[in-house]
Each structure stands twice: as C-alpha cells, then as structure tokens.
C-alpha cells in the first residue's frame, strides 16, 4: 500500500515545489465549505508554490492558485511521500 509510505503533516510544513495530497481538515464549517468549493477535497493533489516558513503561502489546487493564511494552512492535513526526507522542523 502506498498509504503506509506516506506521512501526514500540516500543509504549512510542506516545502515549496513539493506535491502533497489532501488528507483531511478541521477548520469550522464555513471555512471547510469554502475550502471544499475551491477544490480542496480528500485525495486531491496540492502543489506548494510558495512557502517561506512564515506568513501566508501559495498553493495550486485543481489548476487554480490559492493563497492561504498560515493558520488556515496549518489546519489542512496532507500526505507527503516519504522519500522526501528533507522535513522541516
């Protein structure tokens, strides 16, 4: 199974240029609905365009660039593939 080789981390901790897959998010119904309508649904691939470790970040989901506050990004859990060992603390 692929799932066993993947790590679940907050989206805010994924370095730029990497791709991750949405696992789940808990951010209150209104924000969850907004995220879902923008295309964040479990299993969808998210590409991290910009993440400087502080401040908001930019990701691409379903072909659209979306800016997320760091707080919001921290509430979205994603799966990373384990071969990228360069975890950020």
């Amino acid at each position, binding site marked *: 199974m692929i799932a066993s080789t993947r790590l679940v981390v907050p989206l805010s901790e994924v370095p730029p240029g990497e791709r991750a897959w949405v696992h789940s998010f808990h*951010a209150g119904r*209104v924000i969850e609905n907004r995220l879902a309508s923008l295309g964040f649904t479990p299993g969808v691939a998210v590409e991290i365009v910009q993440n400087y470790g502080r401040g908001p970040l*930019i990701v691409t989901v379903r*072909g659209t660039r979306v*800016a997320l*506050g760091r707080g*919001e990004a921290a509430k979205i859990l994603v799966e990373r593939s384990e071969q990228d060992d360069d975890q950020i603390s």
Partner: protein
Amino acid sequence: MTKFHELPPLAPPQVGSKGGSALIALAGQPNMGKSTLFNLLTGLNQHVGNWPGKTVERREGRFDLKGRLVRIVDLPGAYSLTANSPEEIIAREFILLEKPDLVIAVVSAAHLERSLYLVAELLALGTPLVIGLNMMDVAEREGIRIEPHVLEAALGVPVVPMVAAKAWGVRDLLDVVEEVLAGKRIPTPRPPEIRPDHARVLSEIQTLISSYLAHPYPADWVALKLLEGDSEVTHMIRETLPAEKWERVHEILRAHDDAFLAVASGRYEWIGRMVRAAITRPRVGQIGLTERLDRWAAHPLWGLLLLAGILGLVFWLTFTVGTPLQDWLERAVVGMLAGWASEALAGAPFWIQGLIVDGLIGGVGSVLTFLPVLVIFFAAFALLEDVGYMARAAYVMDNLMHLMGLHGKSFLPLFLGFGCNVPAVMGTRVIDSWPARLLTILIAPLVPCTARMAVVAFIAPAFFGTNAVWVTWGLVLFSLLALVLSGTLLNRLLFKGQRSAFIMEMPLYHLPNLRTIGLLVWQRSLAFVKKAGTAILLMAVLVWLLSYLPNGDLNTSYLARFGHLIGPLGRWMGFDWRLTVALLTSFPAKENAIATLGILFGVSPEAGLTDLLTAAYSPAAALSFLTVTMLFIPCLATVAVIKQEAGSWRWVAVSLALFLVLSFLGGAAVYHLARWVGM
C-alpha cells in the same frame, strides 16, 4: 416566517410580464470575467445599487435582444451556492425566488474544473442554463485545449466559447440565449447524481421535511443543503419543523457530520467525468507568465518593494495631476461661480448672499474639488484590481495586517486613506468578509489624509520651527498607532477577536480592460457625487448658518456660543473657545480650521495669523490641537460614505463616538504631557 423569507422582493419587473421581455441572471465565480460580459451587454445602460438589506453591490441593466427587452441582473460572484457568504446567499435566493427565465453561467476555460463547481450546483436547482465558456484565449496561452461541443454533450446544456474581454463569441452567446428563450432549443441538463451511499440518507431527510417546506425550495435541494451543513437552510428547517421531526433530522445530520466533504467530492468526481473528454490537451508543466511574475510580486521582500513603488507612483500622480487640477477647480470654477452669484445677488439681503455664495457654492466647491483626487484613486484601484495585482498586494501585506485581526485585503483601502479617506472607505468593497470590512471602514479615518496634513503643515512650522518635520512625523506615527490600537480593541469588542480566514484565489494576470475600469470609475464617482454630495451640501449650508446666525458675526454666532458652552471640555486639551470653534468648523472640510481661525483672530493676510497664534497659544496647546485634528471625527464627505458603505446610522454613531473619545483622550494626554515636559 423564517429568515429565509425576510428578504424584501427585489426590484419589481418593470418591463411587464413575459412575452416581449425576459429576465436573465448572470452567475459565476469571482474572476471569471462575468462583469466584463455584463458591461459589454449593457454598456452605460445599467443601474448600480445595493441588494436590499445587504452591503453587496447589485448591478442590473437592460439590452435589446432581437426585439426582446432583456432585463439582466449581475449576481455577485460566488464560489458555490452554500451559505458561506452574503454573495452566495444572494445568488441562490435570486434564482430560487425571482425565477429568472434563464441563467447565464460564466465559467473560465483556464480554470474549468473549479468553475464547473458552481455549474454543478446551478444544474441541481433546475434553472434553465446557458454556459459562457470564457477566457478561451487565456486557456490557449496556458496550453489547455477544450472542445466546447463535447462539454455541451456531457452537461446537456448549451456551451458557447467566448473571450468577453475581446467581445469575441458574445454574438454566438446571444444567439443561443435567444433560441432558448424562444423555446427553439430546450436544454436537457444532466445534474450530478447523488452517490449511492448518500442517496438513502438524503431520501430519509427528504421524507421528513417535504410536507413542511415553503413553496420555492425544492425538497431534494433543501435535503442536500442540510447534509452540507448550510447554516441558513439548517436555521430555516429548525424553525419550520415540529420539534420531534427536527430532532430526528438533527440526529441523521449528526451521524453524517462529514457528509459535506462527500458531497463536494461527489461534485468534483462528476466534474472530472465532464471535463475528461472535453479537454483534449491538458495544462502542460510549463511555467506561465503568472508564475514568473509572482516570483517577484508575491516575494516577501521584493513584493513589498514593488508595492511601495506602485503606491509611490499613485501618490506622485495625485500630486502632479490631481492637486493642480483641484486648485484650478477651486479658483477658476468655484471662484467664477461665486463671482457670478455675488454679482447677481448684489441687490439681495446680505444673508441670502452669504447663504448662497459661502454656504451653497462653498459646499458644491468642496464636492467638486474632491473629484480629481478621487478619480485618480478610483482609477488606480480599478486598474490594480483588473490586472490581478490586488491579490498580490493583499498577500504580501497579510503578515502586518494580522496585528489588527485583519488580513491583507484591508491594506490597500487603508493606504488610499493617506490621499483621502473617502476612496479608502469606498475601497473596502474588495474585502469579502463583512466583519473585516466593517472594521476597516471604522478605522480608515485614522489614516491622516492630505487635508489634515495641510492643517499640520500650516501650524507646525509656526510653533516648532525647524523641529516641525519631527512633529509632523510624530503626529503621523501617533495616528497610525491609534489606528492599530483601535483596530485591535474594536476587533476584541465587536468581533470577539476572531480573525476572518485568509483564503484567496490568486487570479491569473491579464491585460487591463479599459471599458471595465472606465465604467467602475464612472460609477464610483457618480455614487459619490449623488449620495455624499447631497449630504455634504446640506451640512455645509447648516454649518454656515450656525456660524452666521443670529446677527451675521462669527464671534457671536450660535457656533461660537456652542464653543463657549463646551469650553470646559476644551480646556482639558488646552483649547480656548476659538480653537474649539475652529475644530467644529473643520467638520465640512478639514482645511476650514485655518480659515476659521483667520476670521476669529480678525486678520486679513494669512502671514499675520501665525504671529497671532503663537502669541495666543503655548506650543503645548498647539501640539494638542494638531493631535485632536488628526484624531477628530472625519470630514463630512467621509461620514457620508461611511453611512453609504456601512449601511446604517448605527455604525456611523459608533464611528463618531470612537473618534470623539479618541480625540479628547489623545488631546488631553498630549497637552498635559507637553506641559509636564515644560512646553
């Protein structure tokens, strides 16, 4: 009945019943080119107002479609039809309650997957639909190729490829719209079916609620929205259903707490099937223009420098074009009008002359002289928004705005306040969350505008000589500090410290559409002249009367008496009655403060005033007066647009109370501190 039915009916159909006329709604997500299409169809033949009871802009227009009069309503941009925002509620209420003859859904070929999400919801409402597949050129540039016919066959509704910005394909769209309206073409929509694992739950809910539903809401749609956790629909059903039925519905909903994700995923699965065949060449991994530009524009350092450069340019334009134009209007146009009026009224009683020349024409003048700077700001704002830069400015400023519980989108409106507070308050329309927008409106007048700086520029050098620069900087910093503090405090008090979420689409950059920008500038300026203009005029006349009555002398006028009356308050800030009156007359326009002092001290050449002032007041009193000028209630024009934008007198009252308290405390503190250090 319930909250759902509280919306008053929208503008009545003035074009008579169907037959020769039709009602069309334009729906779409933000950044899909919906407004461009609307402007193209209606031109200047449109009316801008607010949705009843909301502060969302409502645009309606009309055009002739082959002899048929079409009334078209531009629904606010909405990502979905779930009650996440006022825009989304307005869009669905309009479609459900007004039952337009046809809905044109504008989708972007460059963001096909995401923009079909709204289409999935529109199809479920069963409304007649035609899809305008916009931005075909952008998709082409991004390397995406789409077959509109395949998409049309999959969705079961007409799909018309177009480029609204170049007016390409709009004729075809209108032909199809005409065919559907005339019944020559009947769409057979294929809405997304419910996944089997939820079909049972949905039908269970549907049976529980169906006999209690008010007419316009289809039971299957309501059941779906309940499952999605839609707050408005949940509220409506809880109010409508007998307690024990609601208990059972509630139980089912609790057991399927995360169903909203399954519903959203289901829609995207459906979208995936729709586009799989239609997209013949998917986006390739090339680096687009947007990505290259964003490396600079969204960079934490370069992005800030770029923003500073752009804003500097806007100010430069204001000072090199706007200010001279303003001076010219004041001297040539207003001066000429006043000259004519004085001549024409030479025989009339003195007070009529004064009322018309000083009150009325003075009032018109202050409205008129506002315009050049406003037009420049509106144009700059519209241009930055239209090319897609606004989202980048919001992005790079997000960190700093966090301090006040705001996010990046509040920055640009606030920044505009340095020029004039009026466009700042009007510019808050870019902020999508209402609490954040209201908070920005309330604190925007604390940004020192050019008119206040003019008062500072006159008084500071007189009292502080070479130190005037430091005093000026200190006052600006003090204002901004007051802004941050009131923002933080109001956020705690009014919104319990919650911060609106920062989730924002970063649209692709594109060339500006001059038509869109021009129309926006025209509409905003017109709104200012019409709404704020009348209020300013009335108040200007009123203040003039108070400063003139009862016997034509400012020194003994009602205004002066009022100044004496509240003198004790003024003394706390080191004011005598003359400074108090000067402050009060600065309400119609901030620059008035100097003119009033001139009259009260009875000097003719202005140079004499500085000597008289320095003789009459201590530097501490002067510093206190400047501090109060910075923090005092904003000018009449700003108050008028606060009423217009916040939508109620309650918030105007909150705003006025805030500035009265703030300026009094600030002035008193500065005065006593200054005395204490020996000024």
